[in-house]
């Protein structure tokens, strides 16, 4: 009981970050009730885990950071929530995010922007910015987020915590509100690789309720390796462009040096279609979003913004008033690229390019590379307001993360240094369903790298 109170106190203390959408009173009451009911034998017994607000919970509302789902209480819960509770974890409230997970800064939330825990003028990244900020602030040891194009790794990098996106199909998406169904995957934040991996292991594994979830056992956690002897790490040259932020480059160079000292073989590789990944993503993701978000129409759930006129007037008024500007833009772009006359030029071409991006990775792995190492983001956390009115500039902050989503591969970001006090993240991209290898390398680098020192 007292642990539930301590967890609630830590979360309420972080209120200034606007990272948690659950009101304090409701949070305290629910945590106390959950702690009383939790199974003491569970592997995560008593561990508070905050959850991004696009994952359905029975305990709290699920708004996806949108007005169109204000007050919505799901009549069922996500499989990942059922698994966490069965392991004894406490669902520690719902975290702020970009509306429907569309954004890279948490500025596109209908409930106000979340703040970076180290500099309130800056963004925590996004779209799972609230989850990253709470873990970084020490309010929870771990949190769930979701990824469509980097929405766990990018905020993890900005906030200086660990973020893991598993292989597509590793974790059930049942109860994750759909955005881009061929890309979406639930991911995990932790203060350490081990905290994140522990939670990932619990939520992974088969689920008859999600046909895209693979019929596999839960992920088994590797032990911390003594060295990186035998590992071949590829550095894709397209991820280290001439105009890369110098501090980000220095931090990556240092991490690579440390991995070599640990015995890893490091070699340069090429992923030639990288430059086309962001435009590919910004055709496919909006196309899938325009279809997935057709369900929000003011009829079956969520608020109805105008009851007058005929039913199409109702749809248009509800959607027009309920969706924020970025979601509206993506629905329109998605509808456009799927419309007659444009389908082949945009969507058809993007699907081909997606195949080429995935093939780039296969080629690198076929040549004996075990893992790729890259910066997670081109810069540290940017200032609030800097990119919010320039969609393409915002999209480009995902340039190093979208590729793993397009190819369905597992990837992880961990802190590898700082510049002027702001965290810098390094990224591993692994082979499909070989999260264990990726975690081994991350354990080893985490122990060696001075993550809070200037690069």
């Amino acid at each position: 009981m007292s642990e539930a109170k301590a967890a609630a106190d830590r979360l309420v203390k972080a209120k200034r970050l606007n990272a948690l959408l659950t009101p304090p009173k409701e949070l305290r009451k629910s945590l106390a009730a959950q702690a009383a009911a939790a199974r003491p034998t569970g592997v995560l017994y008593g561990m508070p885990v905050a959850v991004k607000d696009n994952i359905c919970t029975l305990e709290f509302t699920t708004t996806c950071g949108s007005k169109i789902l204000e007050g919505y209480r799901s009549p069922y819960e996500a499989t990942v929530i059922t698994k966490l509770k069965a392991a004894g974890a406490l669902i520690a409230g719902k975290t702020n995010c970009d509306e429907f997970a569309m954004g890279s800064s948490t500025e596109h939330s209908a409930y106000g922007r979340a703040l970076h825990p180290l500099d309130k003028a800056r963004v925590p990244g996004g779209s799972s910015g609230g989850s990253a900020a709470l873990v970084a602030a020490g309010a929870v040891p771990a949190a769930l987020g979701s990824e469509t194009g980097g929405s766990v790794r990018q905020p993890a990098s900005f906030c200086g915590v660990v973020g893991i996106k598993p292989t597509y199909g590793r974790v059930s998406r049942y109860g994750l509100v759909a955005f881009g169904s061929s890309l979406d995957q639930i991911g995990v934040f932790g203060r350490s690789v081990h905290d994140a991996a522990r939670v990932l292991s619990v939520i992974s594994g088969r689920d008859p309720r999600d046909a895209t979830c693979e019929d596999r056992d839960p992920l088994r956690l590797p032990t911390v390796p003594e060295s990186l002897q035998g590992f071949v790490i590829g550095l894709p040259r397209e991820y280290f462009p001439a105009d890369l932020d110098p501090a980000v480059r220095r931090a990556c160079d240092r991490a690579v040096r440390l991995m070599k000292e640990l015995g890893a073989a490091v070699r340069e590789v090429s992923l030639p279609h990288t430059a086309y990944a962001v435009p590919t993503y910004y055709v496919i993701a909006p196309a899938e979003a325009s279809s997935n978000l057709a369900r929000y129409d003011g009829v079956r759930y969520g608020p109805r913004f105008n009851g007058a006129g005929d039913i199409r007037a109702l749809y248009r008024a509800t959607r027009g008033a309920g969706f924020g500007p970025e979601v509206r833009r993506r629905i329109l772009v998605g509808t456009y690229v799927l419309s007659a006359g444009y389908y082949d030029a945009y969507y058809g071409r993007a699907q081909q390019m997606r195949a080429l991006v995935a093939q780039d990775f296969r080629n690198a792995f076929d040549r004996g590379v075990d893992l790729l190492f890259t910066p997670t983001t081109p810069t540290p956390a940017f200032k609030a307001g800097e990119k919010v009115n320039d969609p393409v500039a915002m999209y480009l902050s995902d340039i190093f993360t979208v590729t793993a989503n397009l190819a369905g591969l597992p990837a992880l970001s961990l802190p590898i240094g700082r510049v002027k006090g702001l965290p810098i993240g390094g990224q591993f991209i692994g082979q499909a369903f070989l999260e264990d290898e990726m975690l081994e390398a991350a354990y080893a680098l985490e122990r060696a790298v001075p993550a809070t020192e200037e690069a």
Partner: protein
Amino acid sequence: MSVTRDDVLRIARLAELEVDEEGLPALVDQMSRILEYVAQLSAVPASEGTKPFLPPGPDAIRFRPDEVRPWPLAAGPETIAPAFKEGFFVVPKLEQFEE
């Protein structure tokens, strides 16, 4: 590829999305920029023979038996619907069919 005001209004109708007059010029401008940005894909040579991507995931699509099973919800639709009466969602009528 830039879009016109009429293009945006037509797409908004297809998407059942109300767009206000006030925000329209900015929306036309932003959509044009996004579409111009993604149009670089059509400038890429030699992707003619490339097969479209198939998402990873299950090796083969798994089917479950086609049987009615209760997957109980914690609450019925009446608790989440904006308007619900006698087992039905209540909506305004469709005035006229639009092409």
